[in-house]
């Protein structure tokens, strides 16, 4: 009778996998598979599928309320509205660094939290902010009032002609 223990495993003749060990492996992997799927589900839950909060779209008044060369600050809505010869434009008042509300300064805008400074068009002048203040989309509602879409950024220099 040949001694099976003498048979050495080789690459060409790998040892046979026992049915029992195959089944245990399958059972274990199905267990860990189920656990990881469950874990992924648990971790997926806190990622908000819908972002709550009101639509940030504000009626700011009729165009004739904004004289050419004037500006207005909307504090609660955190943006500034300007009118020059080419039209009306809105610049966000939320600092691009860490979200503080900027104030007007001689130069343009200044952030109180970490000293970011922006030029008159919102471009970055100094401090840690990674980019300039975003320009916001301006439009007109059906009743003729101007609307600022505070969630929609537009390219700097985009003005709404009235």
């Amino acid at each position: 009778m040949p001694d099976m223990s003498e048979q050495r495993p080789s690459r060409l003749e790998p040892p046979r996998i026992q049915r029992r060990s195959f089944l245990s492996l399958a059972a274990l992997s199905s267990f860990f598979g189920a656990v990881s799927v469950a874990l992924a589900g648990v971790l997926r839950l806190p990622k908000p599928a819908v972002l709550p909060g009101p639509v940030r779209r504000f009626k700011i008044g009729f165009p004739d309320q904004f004289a050419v060369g004037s500006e207005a600050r909307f504090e609660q809505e955190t943006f500034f509205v300007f009118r020059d010869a080419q039209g009306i434009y809105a610049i966000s008042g939320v600092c691009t660094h860490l979200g503080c509300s900027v104030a007007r300064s001689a130069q343009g805008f200044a952030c109180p939290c970490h000293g970011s400074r922006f030029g008159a068009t919102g471009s970055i002048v100094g401090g840690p902010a990674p980019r300039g203040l975003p320009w916001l989309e301006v439009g007109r509602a059906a009743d003729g009032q101007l609307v600022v879409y505070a969630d929609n950024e537009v390219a700097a220099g985009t003005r709404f002609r009235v």
Partner: protein
Amino acid sequence: MAEPSQAAATREFVENLRHLPRTVKDAWFRLGRVPESEREESQATFHNLFLHIHSVRIHVRSLAPALTLGLGLIATASFVLLCITGVLLMVYYKPSTALAYDSIKDLHYVVFTGRFIRNLHRWSAHVMVIAVFLHMARVFYTASYKRPREFNWLVGLGLLVLTLGLSFTGYLLPYDQLAYWATMIGSNIANSPRELTDAIGITKWFDPGGFQRRLLLGANYVGEDALIRFYVLHVFVLPVLLVTLLSVHFWRIRKDGGLAKPEDAPGGAAEWGGTMKRVFEPLATKTYGLMALVKGRRPPVNRGPENTVMSWPHLFWAELAVFMASTALCLILSFYLDAPLKELANPAVPENPAKAPWYFLGLQELVSYSAFMGGLLIPLITWIGLAMIPFLDRRGGGEGVWFGTPGERRMAWQSLLFGLAAAVGLLALTVNFGWLRSWFPKIHQLWIIAINPGSILVLLYAGWSLGVLRRRNSVRLAAVALFTCFLAGFTVLTYFATVHRGPNWQFYWWPSHWPVH
């Protein structure tokens, strides 16, 4: 055998009823008196669920106050205080943006002892953070992270993160101005990988920053969803994780052979309060097992006598003393100093300056140069550096002794000076001459992200440490140099941002110089 009569059973019942107080007391306090023999003392330890995490005997060196300064215990004690006071605060606190602030005011002005409990919660939190930092420094400078304690060092670093996470999530809950704006800044630091993804233009496809921020806030702004998330993290998720890790931490101390200590000199027994007994006979010849726990012969292993004493009462007295001292400290602080409460959160007007709690202010100083590097990368690099220490410094020696290998103390002093000088010099430079954008207004954002005074500081410290490694030919000395430098840098940045930063994050020599507005 005759059946006992009914009358006998009744008598027995009445008899048992009569002895009820005594038998219940015996069941409760099994011994019923202070242990007298060493056998009873050992049983007092290992028959009690709460005490048996300690070994029955403890090395006299572990009891020396100068070795540990009781810092781990102080942190634990303050955590216990935090749990108790936290549950009391939960009785009145309402996690909603409309009610949170009012409920804190109620706690402060109306609820009986409410103000005191809230103060206690706040002061215990400060004590815990300080104790955790100092505990880490203690473990480092006594080389107690070395094999086999590497794993417990990692667990400790996990506990450090959880401690800071608990502090940060607790900061929002009062929903006052400070809370609101600190959370706004904190969540935008989580958002700051966007600086990098924006700069290379891939945010549309890959936005880890926005993901982190939304995960934290549950919305795009700090409001109801953020408050409830912070609340759940603060009162459930993080404490449960912390207790779990803390259990592992304690258990590992035991499994790693108690506190780190140098080998006992053969033959000699250390003194312990004049009552030191040489407990185990050297060169014993027989008996294994529990007998070794108490006076008698020990299994013959190749070591000298062990300088151990019974945990009961020596260790428990010491622990109780530390617990009472920490509690007393927190009580005194809470009695005299009220926890602050600013005005109700107002999203339109930022607090100026909006400062995080003191232990985050060092980071806030770095964040004021660039958020991603200062707020995320540098803390991450520091944390990973700390985590790697026991795996890079693997040569034994000096465990359980302050500055245990030759030249360590000197190296610590030199590195402290270098670390302080580098940090102060760099801050003086930025205060007087500005930073990159003041010199090169058109500079690309990637440079702003990469070259933060913090990253310069990290490079300086790493260079100093590598120099020590080459000059002194010792990994441990290089580790001491690096750790000391980071400690110095952390201290300088924290102090600087606490005292010298005012409105608009500008430099002032003193808060009384802040402009009035």
